[in-house]
């Protein structure tokens, strides 16, 4: 058990910091500090390509496919330095962290050759089509249908919460390909080009006034048969495999974003005197502890990837960060007081902390609600009986 990094790792850290810092001070200084998912989309696509051009796009991938075969420690370091430099989140997060690894694991040789170079180069932006209006937390209730006509799948239905669909090139969707099938059976995993007449994307305005999420409508949309991953009817297995990738190194980058939010709250508390309130002090200390424990939980999780088993740290991670961040939003507002309830922006647009307060209400819902997470923990982690499905 070892927390420290080797001297080589520290050199690598310096290299990351230098390059990222240079970019954020130079050519890409205009996007430094952008935190909104929807901010500056075109420049951030260019940033994806800049990363790729300098070999930083997907360092954990095999070098054969544009990666660097980076060690775990290196990936951790890169994620930390990326966030520390104030670089905005990756618009191709889904491509690099989910679609790519899924294709690497389940795709054919031909699919790897077709998709991976574009993703690695920052030219193929992916988004994710899992949730549906009536299958919010319940992938097995998917109703979007696909049927094969010649060498094309014809897709009809609707997905929801498809973040960044409006700037993406491809979407992967879980579809029901077996007529009349129910639950996890009869599902198929398709990769579909977005720019086609059968796909219509509409933004969903959230309670913070912004629209990070979309609804995506499929009306006789087309998917080439060779963009099916795995086999027909294999969609559940692929989707479950993909969800496991969500617990990768990118969690550490996410945490650095949390760090910035907490630091901003600490600064506000020091400046407005809330830092003298013993109740606020306790809550800030708890937030600090919670964030540290997320980091060490993530490192435990990552240190065990070899072992193939999903252990406690991994199972509990989603609900941990989601609840932590929702509490952080409330703490931010309690530190700000009524100041947090007014905005200098005209159009119901909010500074970082009030926006955190509003947006974080979604953290405990999307990607599996806290309730679903607790079911999973009890059932998979503790061997409790599964919730029965109803027949309504």
């Amino acid at each position: 058990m070892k927390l420290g990094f080797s001297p080589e790792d520290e050199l690598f850290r310096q290299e990351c910091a230098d390059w990222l810092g240079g970019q954020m001070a130079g050519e890409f200084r205009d996007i430094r500090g952008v935190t909104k998912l929807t901010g500056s989309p075109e420049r951030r696509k260019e940033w994806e390509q800049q990363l790729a051009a300098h070999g930083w796009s997907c360092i954990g991938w095999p070098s054969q496919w544009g990666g660097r075969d980076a060690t775990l420690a290196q990936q951790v370091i890169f994620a930390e330095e990326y966030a520390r430099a104030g670089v905005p989140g990756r618009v191709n997060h889904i491509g690099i962290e989910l679609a790519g690894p899924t294709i690497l694991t389940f795709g054919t040789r031909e699919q790897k050759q077709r998709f991976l170079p574009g993703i690695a180069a920052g030219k193929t932006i992916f988004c994710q089509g899992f949730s549906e209006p009536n299958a919010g937390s319940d992938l097995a209730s998917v109703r979007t249908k696909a049927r094969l006509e010649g060498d094309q799948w014809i897709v009809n239905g609707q997905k929801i919460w498809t973040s960044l669909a409006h700037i993406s090139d491809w979407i992967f969707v879980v579809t029901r390909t077996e007529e009349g099938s129910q639950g996890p059976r009869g599902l198929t995993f398709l990769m579909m080009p977005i720019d086609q007449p059968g796909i219509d994307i509409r933004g969903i305005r959230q309670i913070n006034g912004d629209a990070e999420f979309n609804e995506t409508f499929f009306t006789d949309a087309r998917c080439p048969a060779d963009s099916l991953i795995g086999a027909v009817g294999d969609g559940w297995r692929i989707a479950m495999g993909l969800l496991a990738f969500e617990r990768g190194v990118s969690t550490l980058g996410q945490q650095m974003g949390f760090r910035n939010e907490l630091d901003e709250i600490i600064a506000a508390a020091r400046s407005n005197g809330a830092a003298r309130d013993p109740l606020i002090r306790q809550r800030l200390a708890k937030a600090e502890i919670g964030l540290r424990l997320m980091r060490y939980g993530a490192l435990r999780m990552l240190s065990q990837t070899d072992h193939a088993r999903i252990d406690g740290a991994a199972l509990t991670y989603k609900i941990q960060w989601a609840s932590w961040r929702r509490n952080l939003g409330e703490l931010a507002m309690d530190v700000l007081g009524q100041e947090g309830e007014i905005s200098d922006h005209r159009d119901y647009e909010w500074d970082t902390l009030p926006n955190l307060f509003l947006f974080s209400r979604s953290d405990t819902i999307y990607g599996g609600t806290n309730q679903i997470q607790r079911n999973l923990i009890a059932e998979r982690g503790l061997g409790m009986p599964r919730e029965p499905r109803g027949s309504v």
Partner: protein
Amino acid sequence: MEFAFTDEQQMIAETARAFFAEHATSERTRRAMAGEGIDLALWRAFCRELALSGIGIPESAEGAGLGLVELAIVAEAAGAQVAALPMLGSLALAGQAIAAGGSEAQRTQWVPPLIAGDRIAGYFHDDRMLASGGRLTGGSRFVAHGAIADLFVVTDMRQMWMVRADAPGVTVTAQTSMDQTRPFAHVMLENAPGEILPDPGAALGAAQRAAFIVVAAEALGGAQACLDRTVAYAKERIQFGRPIGSFQAYKHRLADMMIEIEQARSAVYWAACAVDEGAGEADMAVHAAKSFAADTFFRCAGDMIQLHGGIGFTWEHDAHLFFKRARSLQTMLGSGNWHREKIAAMILGEAA
């Protein structure tokens, strides 16, 4: 000792509930949110047709009589619909202050038009207000519905004045506010003329007590609405092949909401009754009601979002109206911690 509504109170409750449920619709409230945060037609209808706007102000002070229990009943009904109305600032704060602490002339001049909805008043305090020769310099950035007020009742917590919105030296700027159904304005007084109220102690006491109770009652109504709407959703929404309300974790969360709401209900009507009866524990009761009910509302509104899943955090769904109102009620007129510290001081003495 009969801690239940009288028949008359029951009738007021039913009238008010029916009125707000019919008129304070989501559509109208959203129109108000896009504008100045007031549904002026609704406010006028409330004041003139429903004739409940003078409740809680004695008839001797140009009000409609009855007490804070009845005022709480009305505020609860308005809160249940997150109605975009200046009830808090214009009636519970300014109206009560003028009625309790104003001269007869001041009462006669201002109370009737406030109750009639012909005039709207805002209220704020500024501890560091400068007052000299009837001229006031100070202000606040958190004046609820201040942008549409004709009159401000202002206090430095010692004295109290009336300041006309169109007087020289008064600048009013609307603020983008999280709760768009009760937006704040920034009101600045720069050597502005103020008309002093002769009995500031009575004015301050009446305004605070009424406002704590109205905030608490609105919160109670809002919390109950969050529960009712979530219960309805729980019956109709199917997930995993079952109504989501059949999941025990979901049920227990609804039960927890109900447990808190029932306590909040006891708190609100205890406080209103205690003030009306001049009971010794009235001070403790109003602090308890304000803090408990507002915290309950916030919790229930957050739960409403959570229990609605994805749809709950969209702009389109009304959950966020409740959530933002709840947040606003929590912070205005003293946080929960502040009110609880007041109670701690009553039972323990002042902190060291």
